């Protein structure tokens, strides 16, 4: 490793890094603004200036920018030199010429990188006597607040939004000291990743609008490590709470999963936690069919009685949930018995998820982490619009297609961190991305080829590609041969498919392609990135994979879907439904029939939903941010979330309700479990595949320096005021006996394992930029390694038989169209639409038609179309998707209005003459501004 000398101290540095990274790695405090570990250097802010000397005799030196200076063995630098220090001070003085002194009313205050850097360089007195420039702010939608006067023109926002995340509607405008960062006109930011602007902006230009509604400073937030439940990717989050309300969600760095960034659904989709639809108390149905709130104890006694009364084990059944924790699902399974446990997947998704779980378990191929996906040099996507079904993966794929640019940079001897230079060199040359899908996807702009095919044809295409790779037979068409050639030429090809088309044949086609490739590719170890042929499946919900493992592995019937449950309703008298709205999984008639046939329906959930209309007893569950739990993401990584705050009212974590019920019912085995860790251990012990579950995070006995990890910052100055309106006596903090975290500001928050890191703070670094102090190296894993535990690793030599029998393609005949689901980041997920901002962005449900069909049917965007089939007559707003596959009609999946639509079924379409156009865009803003 090269050795450089900084102020007389020799520092070992990573070859090929820049001086700024090297100094930060060495623990030195160097101020910076425009550099970002994920986005590299451009040299615009000039804040990281250091003095470089030509040799020992050079006493004067020359100012260079740390972020733009490659380290070379023997190079000499100084941070302390007066000229450099003065220059860094001058930069902050310059930035402060126009920056308003509004810190007390700025949402960034207390976690502002500009504040930190100002203090760090020691700037105090301003000499500028002129007026400050002012700008007009823009309405940017319900998520992001814009305050342009605070801008220090570091260009991070546009570099993130455009270059990193592929957005187009935020740009740098005007020039000199009038440079403006905003949209071409006011309106909702169109990127699915706009929320990261809040964390990317080093000051208060882009702030979290949802936080501003009930603002709290960072130092007053109580936080805990959490996992996002808005999809199956499992991004790590740091939600913050005060006054019993969830205030905001920040990214929690995970080197292998989410890195520095979240999607907007993950960041803003937890609004339901504070929402009106939350259940606070247990409710029992009365004779007049109304619900009456009952005490926690009475509810437990009643339910315990029902369970113990179940005359045979067969008369008790449970429906689990892919959005509930492993522990809760496990307890339900044990309580009702494996034979009576139904995972709660819909009939359509059950075989798909089961097959994906089977493939993942077989461990024949690398099921890559997001970090590993970023190393892919050729990507084939079968049937997924990843941006809407596994958003963080889409952001990673946008980086993966840049591998071509990085190769070109290597050839031109540029460093990867020379961001502008690498982008200028490569221009629009990208690594190949091939998308085969039923309709337009948000990655089409970086794809080199897109194919629009009906679901069954997607599977056929995939099989043709696999055959062409293996050379088994003549490929069906030239397209498949071309795709095969691209994938074969790659070193680290990545195949992505998933459950969203609800089509097993597509899942198998992806497997076939990946297996065919695995015979071809060499597989290279490159640094910390192991690469070979990679296969990744997106799954619908946070614990879909975990639930599938619980339901389908080891004990239990293989055919335990909701339809089979429907067939045995006669024998069941008590049905326990865990965190599952059955109306999202079954048709309304089936659902009514199922719940009507059962004498006692017990529902444990957090939000009110239609299933409860037929429930006998409802138990209020704690949300993900009020409970501990383990989730298994689509990568097969077990991760743990912890309560950020104690559940209010009579809410309890589902696992705790179930454990208490088991005890009340006198369940032998389960009554020996007392703590969360006991349940996790029992779950892990139940199946060798789940053995790693206990290693997802340290157990509740973990201590550092004899103390638990504090959830509060040690500047939580307002904590004594929280209840001052009730009592001036400070109440005792709640005791957390289940986790290694404590509801306190006392204790060290420094070296805890990544899985227990609730927030980032370091002396002098109050903003999220303090993260670098906790990374083992800049942009590397956190000290102590990445959180969570991968349950499956690739096993050499293992082969899984692939099923190759895709159904024949379907063409529309006589105005019969095949329904295909179209997913939306905002709207398709059950819980997040409970956030008013997400609901606003989701807009109305739609039926999607191709441009050709739209012309044929004489409709345009916003018109009404009537969908008809047996038992179906529904009118929806039209959305034109230019490349919707022939013979298909799309519908907004997961929207309440479209729950009745069955993917793959046939409908007829007619223009709805009586349709009233709605203009949600105009209602969205009270400013009367039309958005796009």
């Amino acid at each position, binding site marked *: 490793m090269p050795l450089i000398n900084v102020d007389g101290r020799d520092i070992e540095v990573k070859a090929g890094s820049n001086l700024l990274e090297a100094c930060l790695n060495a623990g030195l405090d160097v101020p910076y603004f425009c550099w970002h570990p994920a986005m590299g250097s451009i040299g*615009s802010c000039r804040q990281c200036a250091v003095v470089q000397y030509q040799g020992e005799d050079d006493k004067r030196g020359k100012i260079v920018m740390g972020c733009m200076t490659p380290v070379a063995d023997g190079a000499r630098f100084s941070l302390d030199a007066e000229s450099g220090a003065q*220059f860094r001070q001058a930069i902050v003085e*310059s930035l402060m010429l126009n920056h308003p002194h509004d810190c007390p009313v700025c949402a960034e205050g207390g976690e502002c990188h500009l504040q930190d850097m100002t203090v760090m360089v020691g700037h105090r007195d301003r000499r500028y006597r002129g007026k400050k420039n002012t700008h007009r702010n823009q309405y940017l939608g319900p998520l992001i607040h814009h305050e342009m006067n605070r801008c220090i023109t570091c260009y991070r926002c546009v570099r993130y939004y455009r270059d990193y995340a592929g957005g187009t509607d935020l740009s740098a405008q005007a*020039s*000199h000291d009038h440079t403006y960062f905003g949209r071409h006109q006011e309106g909702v930011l169109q990127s699915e990743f706009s929320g990261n602007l809040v964390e990317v902006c080093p000051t208060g230009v882009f702030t979290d609008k949802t936080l501003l509604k009930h603002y709290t400073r960072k130092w007053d937030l109580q936080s805990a490590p959490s996992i996002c439940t808005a999809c199956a990717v499992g991004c790590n989050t740091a939600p913050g709470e005060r006054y019993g309300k969830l205030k905001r969600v920040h990214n929690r760095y995970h080197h292998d999963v989410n890195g520095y960034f979240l999607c907007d659904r993950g960041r803003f989709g937890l609004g339901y936690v504070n929402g009106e639809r939350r259940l606070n108390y247990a409710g029992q149905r009365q004779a007049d069919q109304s619900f009456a709130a009952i005490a926690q104890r009475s509810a437990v006694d009643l339910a315990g009685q029902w369970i113990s009364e179940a005359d045979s084990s067969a008369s008790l059944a449970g429906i689990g949930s892919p959005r509930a924790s492993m522990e809760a699902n496990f307890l339900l399974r044990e309580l009702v018995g494996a034979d009576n446990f139904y995972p709660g997947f819909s009939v359509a998704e059950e075989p798909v998820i089961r097959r994906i779980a089977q493939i993942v378990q077989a461990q024949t191929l690398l099921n890559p982490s997001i970090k590993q996906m970023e190393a892919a040099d050729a990507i084939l996507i079968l049937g997924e619009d990843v941006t809407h079904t596994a958003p963080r993966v889409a952001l990673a794929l946008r980086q993966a297609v840049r591998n071509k640019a990085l190769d070109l940079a290597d050839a031109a001897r540029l460093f990867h961190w020379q961001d502008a230079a690498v982008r200028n060199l490569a221009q629009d*040359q990208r690594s190949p991305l091939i998308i085969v899908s039923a309709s337009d996807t948000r990655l089409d702009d970086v794809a080199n080829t897109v194919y629009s095919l009906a679901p069954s044809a997607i599977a056929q295409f995939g099989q043709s590609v696999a055959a062409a790779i293996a050379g088994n037979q003549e490929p069906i068409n030239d397209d498949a041969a071309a795709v095969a050639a691209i994938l074969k030429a790659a070193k680290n090809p990545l195949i992505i498919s998933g459950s969203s088309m609800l089509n097993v044949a597509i899942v198998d086609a992806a497997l076939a392609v990946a297996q065919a490739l695995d015979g071809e590719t060499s597989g290279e170890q490159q640094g910390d990135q192991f690469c070979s042929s990679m296969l990744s499946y997106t799954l619908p919900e946070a614990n879909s994979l975990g639930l599938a493992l619980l339901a389908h592995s080891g004990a239990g019937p293989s055919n335990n879907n909701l339809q089979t449950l429907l067939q045995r309703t006669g024998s069941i008298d008590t049905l326990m439904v865990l965190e599952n709205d059955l109306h999202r999984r079954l048709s309304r008639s089936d659902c009514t029939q199922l719940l009507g046939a059962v004498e006692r329906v017990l529902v444990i959930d957090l939000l009110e939903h239609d299933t409860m209309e037929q429930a006998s007893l409802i138990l209020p569950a704690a949300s993900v941010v009020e409970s501990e739990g383990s989730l298994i993401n689509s990568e097969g990584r077990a991760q743990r979330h912890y309560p950020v705050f104690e559940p209010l009212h009579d809410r309890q974590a589902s696992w705790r309700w179930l454990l208490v019920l088991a005890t009340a019912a006198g369940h032998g085995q389960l009554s020996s479990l007392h703590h969360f860790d006991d349940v996790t251990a029992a779950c892990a012990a139940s199946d060798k595949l789940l053995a790693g579950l206990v290693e997802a995070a340290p157990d509740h006995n973990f201590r550092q320096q004899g103390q638990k990890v504090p959830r509060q910052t040690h500047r939580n100055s307002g904590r004594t005021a929280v209840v001052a309106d009730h009592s001036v006596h400070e109440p005792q903090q709640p005791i957390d006996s289940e986790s290694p975290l404590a509801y306190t500001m006392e204790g060290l928050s420094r070296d805890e394992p990544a899985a227990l890191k609730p927030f980032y703070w370091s002396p002098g670094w109050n903003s999220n930029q303090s993260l670098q102090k906790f990374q083992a190296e800049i942009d590397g894993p956190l000290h102590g390694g990445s959180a969570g535990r991968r349950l499956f690793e690739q096993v050499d030599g293992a082969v899984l038989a692939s099923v190759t029998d895709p159904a024949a393609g379907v063409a529309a005949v006589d105005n019969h169209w095949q329904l295909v689901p179209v997913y939306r980041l905002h709207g398709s997920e059950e819980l997040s639409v409970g956030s008013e901002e997400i609901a606003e962005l989701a807009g109305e449900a739609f039926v999607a038609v191709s441009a050709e069909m739209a012309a044929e049917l004489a409709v345009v965007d916003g018109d009404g179309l009537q969908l008809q089939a047996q038992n179906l007559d529904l009118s929806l707003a039209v959305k034109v998707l230019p490349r919707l596959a022939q013979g298909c009609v799309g519908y907004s999946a997961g929207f309440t209005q479209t729950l009745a639509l069955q993917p793959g079924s046939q409908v007829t379409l007619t223009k709805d003459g009586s349709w009233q156009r709605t203009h949600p865009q105009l209602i969205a803003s009270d400013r009367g501004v039309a958005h796009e």
Partner: protein
Amino acid sequence: MEKVLTRNIGEHPVPTDLKAYEANSGYQGLRKALSTMSPAECLQSISDSGLRGRGGAGFPTGMKWSFVPMGDKCSPGHKYLIANADEMEPGTYKDRLLMEYDPHQLIEGMILSAYTIGADMAYVFIRGEYHVAIARLRDAIAECNNNGLLGDDILGSGFTLQLHVHPSGGRYICGEETALINALEGKRANPRAKPPFPQVSGLWGRPTIVNNVETLCNIPHIIDRGADWFKSLGLGDDAGTKMFGASGRVNNPGCWELPMGTPIRDIVEIHAGGMQPGLQLRGFLPGGGSTDFLTADHLDLAMDYDVIGKAGSRMGTGLLVVLDDHTCPVAMVLNLIQFFAHESCGFCTPCREGLPWTRQVLEDIEQGRGRWEDLETLAYQVSYIGAMGNTHCALAPGAMEPLQSALKYFREDFDKHISDGCCPYGGANKMAAHSHLTSSGLSSPSADAEGVQ
């Protein structure tokens, strides 16, 4: 003296068309090169000639070209040649003259340069206000395309070149070659970090040469008549002739082709006709708004890159801006700083924020609100903004050059502004005296420049 660059531009010039250009040995250099010289031989000839860039930096042209990867060393794809015709340096109007009256000279120079570096695409990136030059260049290019001088297989040599005129949206920073390239790509005109240099990764990431118009106009003559002939034209160390000029309150402001190394006194007193009656020369910027002031003591220096450099300034574009003793130097510097602050691209902090800060201090001094500590602030700003490397490109250091030298030579004027609490020259009324530097698209002396000696 032999006229080279302006041989087709007389005292009352008319635009030269293809016929007229060819009649005066036009495209002779091109015919010679395409039929008898390899690109390497052309490069050798340019290197030998000692030609240095006429845009202001004076970088040796042959050396610049030698960094372009040739043959097998170049990955397959386009290479580009760009003529930098975005002439926006305050007080500079030489390229306009060359383009308006002898467009074919530039085109021939570009074809030869493209041939030398192996470029197959070329652009004239031209200041949008130069609409006359744009029209004449387009006409000339059409003539060439119709006569086998541009397009496929030029003069049967197999060499191919497409030449386009691209009018600029209009920013001073577009004269910086990498900002120019960004602008040509349709991006914000921010300069790029170097390395990589455009010779390796320029337009669309491909090898690119950007040369000033006047530089390129020299090429046909060097190829046609040889490096030794070219070197013999200069009076001192530097080779060739150069467009020189003078603006300010001289009797005959204008632009003239003179040998390299012509004494400044000749330019001011003979060609520009000396100072207007009743005025004394106080100082001058030797080559545009971003060069350090020199004073009457320097009048006998030769206009050579190194000579002017040793005197503490730069030859820049070679067009003098003369300051007389009835004009306020503080106001003149303020006027220039206003221009540069406005033309900052906004990319890096010292330039974007520092120049408006400097403007505020100078404004206060000029308008009688100056404080003694402002002089320290100005000195601080000169070292903070003016040091090359502190900023992303050379704009801000260039902007600081008139200020730092004004502080050196005209310090008593600054002092008097502060001690009197007003401008001793009459303040804002007189500021208009130098508005010709920056106020309008067309600088007024260039209108007179048509009278070329």
